[in-house]
């Protein structure tokens, strides 16, 4: 491990970190934006969810590299290619969590809201979604971390990310570069995860001091197949 290599190439490493961050975070956010209406609809109309879930499980089973390749004729070897693919995968993770989070709102709370005169939309926005935040953010965390990691595979089709450090390190037989790439991705993922945890804490003051029901069976059973 040659430590001096790092400061020497600081600019490049930093640039790649930002590239990777962009390729990881943007798809997750777009995925969230699409997942919310989709998930709300699936929670509201029970018949809608099973086909959505099946579609999600199938799409999530597609290996990432294969999806990048399949998008080449349409989107070329560009950032957009990777972002579209990763958005699709993010959807697969977040939609079940939106549905699960909304369904997990206790029935007495929902009933009390209706009985007090909340209309359906107001109830959704002021009661159900806020209570679903922890589960939704749990899904978002998985999406962000997975996307950051999978974005590095995009390097194989030439889309620039921290994966460059792996490819270059292999070609030059230079382990230091590979270690740096690994560390950078893991630290980046960790940093984003912590930011999201912070956001969750800020948005859920009522949970402070309460033991977080750890991203438990609910999230696990809902989060489909893992990602490379």
């Amino acid at each position, binding site marked *: 491990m040659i430590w001096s290599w790092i400061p020497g190439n600081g600019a490049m490493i930093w640039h790649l970190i930002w590239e990777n961050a962009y390729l990881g975070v943007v798809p997750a956010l777009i995925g969230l934006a699409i997942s919310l209406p989709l998930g709300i609809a699936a929670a509201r109309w029970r018949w809608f969810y099973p086909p959505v879930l099946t579609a999600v499980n199938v799409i999530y089973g597609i290996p990432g590299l294969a999806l990048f390749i399949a998008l080449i004729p349409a989107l070329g070897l560009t950032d957009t290619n990777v972002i579209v693919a990763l958005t699709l995968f993010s959807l697969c993770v977040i939609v079940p969590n939106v549905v699960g989070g909304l369904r997990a709102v206790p029935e*007495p709370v929902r*009933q*009390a809201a209706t*009985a*007090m*005169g909340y209309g359906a939309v107001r109830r959704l926005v002021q009661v159900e979604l*806020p209570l679903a935040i922890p589960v939704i953010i749990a899904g978002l965390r998985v999406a962000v971390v997975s996307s950051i990691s999978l974005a590095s595979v995009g390097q194989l089709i030439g889309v620039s990310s921290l994966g460059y450090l792996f490819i270059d390190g292999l070609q030059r037989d230079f382990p230091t570069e590979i270690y740096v790439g690994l560390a950078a991705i893991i630290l980046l993922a960790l940093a984003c995860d912590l930011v999201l945890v912070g956001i969750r804490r800020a948005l859920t003051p009522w949970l402070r001091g309460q033991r977080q029901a750890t991203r438990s069976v609910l999230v696990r059973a809902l989060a489909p197949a893992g990602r490379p």
Partner: protein
Amino acid sequence: MITFQHVTKRYPDGTVAVDALDLEVPTGKTMVLVGPSGCGKTTTLRMINRLVEPTEGRILLGGQDVQQVNPAQLRRRIGYVIQQTGLFPHRTVEDNIATVPLLNGWRRAKARARARDLLSLVGLDPALARRYPHQLSGGQQQRVGVARALAADPPVLLMDEPFSAVDPLVRSTLQDELVRLQTELRKTVVLVTHDIEEAIKVGDLVALYRPEGRLAQVDSPQRLLGAPADSYVSDFVGFDRGIRRLSFFRATGLNLRTEPIAGQDSTAAEALGAARRSGEQWILVTGQDRKPRGWVPAGRLESLPGDTPLGGVPADGFGHTFTVDADSLRAALDAAVLSPAGHAVGVDGDGRVVGMLSYDELRAAIQAADSAATADGSGWEPSAPQPEPERAAQ
């Protein structure tokens, strides 16, 4: 205030939850709907605020058909309290209470001020306002639920088994609180419970349901206990309804005996003398403050020197006392049963002995109360077998 006109609720699979119900809930009274599980009492309640829609019939609220009003608007005028409270976990206590006022467009400061007033009204420390529901005990959460229901000052309050999920001690306290609140607020309350004791305790009127969604009897608690319409009602109400009915009679206008009562400073000889004069076997010993200390059997005194102060003689406990003019005849009867002498000890508001009552004298008092009750229609019916109600053809 609330009128059910021939209301039926039939589900698509054929089950009839409520069958041709006619019921009148008078303004400012507490009407308790009670019955076995699945009898339709909760369905009835939830048709008032349209959480359930009737299949047939009309429900009038203040003369207006509830079907003609927009449901959300209707519900803002009706308070609703449920067993599991349904408090919003993500809002503070005061924001929970302020829910309907805020929905109605009040400014936040005004709504929160009202919330804090209501906290005091339901007997909670206003310091709890900024806490979250999960930080409160079950009993406190239920009180917040009631406060929330009262926030917009609705004329009607619906309560669905509100106290069933808390332990008996807390439940009793909350029931007392409800009765107290009602004397202050005089809302029209409809409360659903499966507990006949709760119904009798808090209700001005009790509607007892049969298992199949029809009413068996609608009456005051006294009349329900004293004059059950048939064997179903008397079975549901319970076998000791005679004694429980005594709760409704105040222990007043009683001829209390003042002999033999002796202060702890008097001598054994004096006590024995008092006992012989009144022909009794037991002497009530009082302290210097005239509060009761215990019963002493005459036999125990006979073997002692005549000048032994009563205070030094071991006395038997007296169970409990009843407060004259305040407690019920049931309390007096219970005091008599618990007393080794078979006499109930009556005390005044400060606990000082006024006199005592034997079983015979108590019986006379009960019969007197009964005659008065018969005069106003809540008296006893003879327990001759009643004809069974017509069973609906299957």
